[in-house]
């Protein structure tokens, strides 16, 4: 019963994706008719300068915002898990968790309003004329990513025996040394996972980016969204196939690393 349910559910999840991938290699434009194997849509994708530019912009924004999110979210998660009770902790926790539950349209609109107010203030007080674009998208994505990293790191630390850090302190390690030699190595996988999550969310976001971007910043999802509005193009299929391949590759590599770590654990001397 449950096995059948699992098979049906996985089929529902994967069938559209597999159809899309298969179709990306078809030479024809009509989905139901196989036009013969072809890489022409990948070639068309590679030749599309707007796509290339948008992809490059998106990757830079994703990498930058994920890195900021990892640093700030790591600190936030650490503080929430290990600083005990401090003044303003409840507010801090609520703010760190808010981007996880705020609807995208609310996050996007409220951040845009902030940027508009900040632009106005910068012009009035300093005479600066600040534009919106890649920088504002990066700030917005870092804020959302921060919340995800904080959750991942906080739950990892909550599951870690506090005695480990106390034992290190007892053995003569000061707070910074405890962090460097014990805490950081133990949360490093969570930080990496959080970075990857923030990176993916940034690469996937169209709503928040559309709100906070200016005329200069068109990210890949924004471009894909407008392409989908006028109808599916085979280039989008090819693009989705590339994304899927990258995601599959990343999962495979992570799986291999995981398997190697656990087999090294089982074999004895490491």
């Amino acid at each position, binding site marked *: 019963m449950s096995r059948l349910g699992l098979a049906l559910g996985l089929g529902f999840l994967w069938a559209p994706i597999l159809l899309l991938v298969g179709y990306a290699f078809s030479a024809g434009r009509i989905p139901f008719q196989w036009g013969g194997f072809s890489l022409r849509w990948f070639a068309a994708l590679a030749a599309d300068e707007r796509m290339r530019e948008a992809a490059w912009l998106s990757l830079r924004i994703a990498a930058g915002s994920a890195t900021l999110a990892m640093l700030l979210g790591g600190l936030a998660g650490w503080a929430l898990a290990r600083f005990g009770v401090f003044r303003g902790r409840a507010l801090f926790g609520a703010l760190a968790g808010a981007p996880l539950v705020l609807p995208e349209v609310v996050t996007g609109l409220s951040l845009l309003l902030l940027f508009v107010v900040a632009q106005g203030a910068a012009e009035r007080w300093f005479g600066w004329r600040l534009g919106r674009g890649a920088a504002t998208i990066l700030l917005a994505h870092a804020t959302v990513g921060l919340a995800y990293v904080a959750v991942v790191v906080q739950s990892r630390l909550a599951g870690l025996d506090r005695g480990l850090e106390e034992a290190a302190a007892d*053995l003569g390690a000061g707070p910074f040394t405890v962090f460097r030699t014990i805490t950081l190595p133990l949360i490093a996988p969570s930080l990496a996972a959080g970075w990857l999550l923030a990176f993916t969310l940034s690469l996937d976001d169209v709503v928040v980016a559309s709100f906070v971007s200016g005329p200069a910043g068109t990210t890949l999802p924004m471009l894909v969204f407008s392409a989908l509005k006028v109808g599916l193009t085979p280039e989008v299929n090819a693009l989705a196939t590339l994304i899927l391949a990258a995601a599959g590759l990343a999962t495979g590599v992570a799986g291999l690393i995981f398997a190697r770590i656990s087999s090294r654990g089982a074999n004895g*001397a490491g």
Partner: protein
Amino acid sequence: MALLRVEGLSKRFGPTLALDGLDLEVRPGEFLALLGGSGSGKSTLLRLVAGFEAPDSGRILLQGRDLAGLPPPARPLGMMFQNYALFPHLSVFDNVAYGLRREARPRAEIARRVAEALAMVGLEALAARRPHQLSGGQRQRVALVRALVKRPPLLLLDEPLGALDAGLRERTGFELRALQRATGAGFILVTHDQAEALALADRVAVLDRGRVAQCGPPAELYERPASRFVARFLGAANVLEGRVAADGAVEAAGGRLALDHGLAPGGALALALRPERIRLLAGPPPAVNAVAGTLRELAYRGDGWIALVALADGTELRVALPAAAAPPPPGSAVTLGWDAAALVPLAG
């Protein structure tokens, strides 16, 4: 001079008073056991000494030096944690070397001292392993030498045998004693297991609600408990509530008890009576230090029997009977007797 002096230590967590003006002294090279149930404050005391919590009031002096304000890394003492707290991402060698590296010792010295320490507990062959590749007993020994390798004058052990199975506990206990003698360090061992405390320690401090109820050598605590709490906690002694009669004998449990108590007639007193000091008597009961009752329940313990005997006044006595003779069946009328020396007057 005492190795460790704890004076009037108090610590409150919210509404609970974990330590209530506790005083304690550990002598150099002494093995002291802190024995108490959950909530007695024994773990709190350890964490205050190690510096993980700050006391509300009171002083902690190590070798005459007040530890107030010193963070844990600056305190010259070692701690072995309840679940060992072995660093999962470091090898056995790196775990043991961790403390020495914090002192920035030369590489060669660290390698030599870690090797010596691991040899002391027979783990030199496992130096490259990670903690999760070790058995429970091996982990316990790594945690122990990791805490000892810096040669602290005082070692704190939080339930060091608690995570081991019964077969391993006794042997590991002997190893612990041997290691303590070899290093000459003072050991404070926290445990809720009275057998462990009595077997290992030079002195045992029984903790009750944040205070030391009694502190002394194991035999003294067992034979001469000072209070109802200690008598019941250690070896589950019977406590008889009595009153001194006009002729100086004590009337308790429906019988007349003869002992030295130094109280005036009419005074009330409590007496501890160990189950294994009570005997089954044949024939009519003697006039003093004997009572009649009914054997209610019987439990076989391997090395003997534990019987519950109900007396006429409703008191129930725990009686330990030797395995040699078959006890009477439940429901039998029995006569119980003991020596005057078996009765221990209790102060509190």
